[in-house]
C-alpha cells in the first residue's frame, strides 16, 4: 500500500510547491495549507500503513491484542496538524494586514524593507 501513498504524497507536494511559487499571497497561503497535509502524509507513510486497527488497548488488557497501526507517527502528526494550523492562521492575518496596508497582493510590489534602488552603503569610516 505504501507506494500508493507515496504517489499521493508526491501529488500533494507538487500542488503545494506550485502554489507557493506564485507571486500572489493568497495562492501562497493555500499552498502552505496543502504543504502541511503533504508533510503529514509523508510522516504517516514512513511509519508504514495498516488498515483500520487504531493503536488502542482493549479493556482488561495490558498490551494491544494483535498488530495495531503505528502510534508514533500519529502522535507526531497530531502535533504537526495543530502547529501548521496556527502557522496558517498567522500567515492569513499577516497577508490580510499586508494587503490592507500596502494595497497589493503581489510579492514583487512589497518592497518596504528592501526598496528598489536603495542608496549605496556609506564609504566613510
Amino acid at each position, binding site marked *: 500500500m505504501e507506494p500508493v501513498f507515496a504517489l499521493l504524497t508526491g501529488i500533494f507536494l507538487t500542488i503545494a510547491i506550485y502554489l507557493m511559487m506564485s*507571486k500572489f499571497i493568497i495562492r501562497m497561503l493555500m499552498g502552505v495549507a496543502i504543504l502541511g497535509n503533504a508533510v503529514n502524509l509523508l510522516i504517516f507513510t514512513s511509519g508504514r500503513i495498516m488498515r483500520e486497527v487504531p493503536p488502542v488497548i482493549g479493556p482488561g488488557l495490558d498490551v494491544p491484542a494483535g498488530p495495531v497501526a503505528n502510534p508514533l507517527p500519529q502522535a507526531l502528526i*497530531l502535533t504537526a496538524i495543530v502547529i501548521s494550523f496556527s502557522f496558517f492562521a498567522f500567515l492569513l492575518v499577516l497577508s490580510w494586514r499586508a494587503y490592507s496596508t500596502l494595497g497589493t497582493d503581489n510579492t514583487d510590489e512589497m518592497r518596504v524593507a528592501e526598496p528598489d534602488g536603495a542608496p549605496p552603503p556609506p564609504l566613510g569610516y
Partner: protein
Amino acid sequence: MSVADLTFLALLLPFLGAIVAPLLTRILGHNAAWVLALVPVAIFLHFTGFSAEIARGEVVTGGYAWVPSFQVRFSWLIDGLSLTFMLLISGIGALIVLYSGGYLKGHPHQGRFFSFLLMFMGSMLGLVASDSFLMLFVFWELTSITSFLLIGFDHQREAARRAALQALVVTGGGGLFLLAGLIILWNMTGINQFSLLTAFAPQVKASPLYLAALVLVLGGAFTKSAQFPFHFWLPNAMEAPTPVSAYLHSATMVKAGVYLLMRLYPVLGGTPAWQIILPVFGATTLIIGALLAVRQTDLKLMLAYTTVSSLGLLVLLTGFGAPYAIEAAALYLLAHSLFKGALFMVAGCIDHETGTRDVTRLGGLRFAMPLTFAIALASAASMGGLPPFFGFLAKEEVYTALSAFDGRAIIFAVLAVVGNALMFAAAFAVALKPFIGKRIETPKAAHEAPVLLWLGPAVLALKGLAVALLSGTVHELITSPMASAIAGEARVVTISLAPHIGVPAALSTLTVLLGIGVYLRLARLRAAIAAALAAIGWGPDRGFDQAMRGLVRLSSAVTRRLQTGRLDIYMTATFTLLAVVLIVPPFLYGELARAPVFPQDIPLHELAIMAIAVIGLVAVVLAQDRLTAIVSLGIQGFSVAVIFLLYGAPDLAFTQFMIETLAVVILALVMTRLRLSPSDHRPLRENLPDAAIALACGLGATLFLIKVTEAPFDTGLSDFFNQYSKTIAHGANVVNVIIVDFRGTDTLGEIAVVMIAALAILSLVRLRAGSLRRIADNDPDAEEASR
C-alpha cells in the same frame, strides 16, 4: 605560591588592573596613575628576579595544559630575549602609566584609557612570554585589538577612527598569515612550542614547505613591525594620544614583529632566502622611513617615520647574517626603546604645554622648558649615535656588523649610513629646533611640564646614559643573554665607550657629518621630497582607502545579486535546490527505488477518496473564483481526514476535521475582505518553469518515500509505546498517552507555539492601520511629525 604560579599571576595582573582602573580613576582622578603604576612595577620586579638565572644562560619554562586534546599548552618561555622584552614592557609601561596620568589629566574617559593601556600591557607581556604557538597567536591578535581601542580612543574624530581601523586590518590580517605559518611549522615538526622547536631546525630548513612557512611568518612580522609596503598604518596611528604613541608605536608593540623574527631566527634563519628577503625589505624600509621622516613638520609624525626606519634597520640586521649582526640588533633594539620612548614623551610635553606639534611654529623654548630641553637633547644624542649615550654603542656595533667589506655588505653599509644620517637630522629637528632660535608665539603660553609629564622621559634619557656608562654589567645581564637567545648559541657582547679607531668609528663620524649637513638643509630637502611625492601621487595609504571602498562596493553588489528582495526568486531557488537534493544523489549513487509493487486489491472506497483528494487539489489550482478555491481546499483537507480514519488513525481524523473546518471558515472570512481573485494572472511561460520545478519536487519525494518504505522497518519505539502505555502510564489510547505523557514536554512546547501565534494574530488584528501605513511609506519621521 610557587614561582610558576607567581609568573602566571604576573601575566594576569595587567588585566586585573584594567578591571579596577576605571573605578580607581573615578575615586582618585588623575592621581590613580601612581597606584596603577604599581602593576607594571610589580611585574618588573618579579621578572628581574629571573635575571641571574638568565645571565648564567639558563632558560625558565612553565605553564599549564590548555587544550589537552590538541597538546596545546598555556606555557611561557623566559630566556634572554623574552626577559629583555618583559623588562622593557613593564619598565617603560610604568613610566607611561604615570605619563598618561599627567597627559590626560581631567579627560572624562581617563579611567577607560588606563584600562585599555593595561590591557595592552598584558597582551604584549603575554606575547613575548609565550612558548606555545597558539598562545602567541592569541596575544598577538590581542595586541592588535587593544591597539585598535587605543588609537581610536578619540573616537569622535574620523581620522582617529580610520587610523584605528587601518591598524586593525593591517596588523590583525598579518596575524592570520602568522597563524598559517605557525600551523605549517606545527605540521612539519609536530611541535607547537618554541622551546622545543630549535632542535628541529635542520628538518624545517630542508622541508619543501620551508619557503611557504617563512613567507607566511614574515607576513605577520612585516605587518606588525610596519615594514614597507605595510608601513603606512604606523604614522597614521599617531592619531592616538601621545602616551600610546610612545608606548605601543615606538617602544613595544611595533617591535613584536622583530621579536618574532628573533624568536624564530634559530629555526628559520640563516638560509639564503632569509638573508635576501629580510635585508632587502629592511633596507628599503630604512631609507623610505627616513626620507619620509625629514619630510614631515609634525613632531610626532617625524618620530613615527623614524620608528619605521629603525624597525627597517632591525629587520636588516636580523636578516644580515654577518658576525656581530645579531649583537647589533639586540643593542639597537634596547637603545631604540629608550630614546624613542623618551622623544615621543618629549613631543607630547611640547604639544601639551604649547598647544602645537608643528616644528615650523615652535622656537626658543629653551628658557620656558629647560628640563624638557635637556631630556630631549640627551635622547636625540642617543638616537643620533653620539657618545656617551647608549645609541652610540648600538651604532658602533651596527657598523661593525656591516663593515665586512664584501660586495653585499658595502651596499647595505652605504644604505645604513644614509638612513642613519637622515634619522640624525630628524632627531635634532625634533629635539633641538623647537628650543633654539627666536621665541615664536604658541597657542598656549609655554612653561615647564608638570612632574608626571617629565618623570617618564627623564628616567628613560638617564637610563640611556647609565646603560652606556655601565655597559659591562648591562652586557652581562641583558644584551649578551639576549643575543645568545636570538642566535641559539652563546654570544658575548663586549662593546664599550672605550675609544677605538677603525672602520666603524669612521662610518660613525661620516654619519654624524652627513646628518649635520642634512639638518642644516632640512627645509630644502623637505620641499624636494614633497615635490617627489606629489609627482608619484599614490601611496599604500590611499591604496588602503581604495581597497576598503572596493570591499564595501563588492559586498554590496554581491548582496544585491544574492538578495534581490523578490520573494518568488528566493522560493524558486529553495525549491530548485530541494528537487536537486531529492533526485540527483539517488541517481549518482545508484540508490533509486526498485520497481514498486502496487497492490491490486485496493478497495474501491479507498481509491475513490484518494481520487477526491486529487480532484480537490487540482480544483484549488484551477479555481477562477474565491468560493471554488476555498471549497476545493476544504475537499482535499477532509479527504486527508477520511484517509487517516480508514488507516487506523481516528484521533488524527477528528483533529483534521476540526482544523479543516476552522481553516475554511477563517479563510472565507478573510477572503471576502480581501476581494482578491485566487487565480494566477501570470502568462503561461512564467508558470511552466514553476510547474516543472514543483513536479520534480513531487517526483523526488515520491521516489524517496518508496525507497524509505522499501527498507525494513524498525518497530522498537512503537513496540515500546504499545507495551508500556497501559502498564506505566495507565492509558488505553496509545497515541494520547504519547502526547500527554511520554512526550508531554513536547506538547507543552506546542501549546506555547499556538499561544504565541495567537498573540501575534491578536496584535496584528488590533494594530492601527495608520501606523502601518507610515511603515509602508518607509518614513519614520512621519510618526514624529504627527504627534
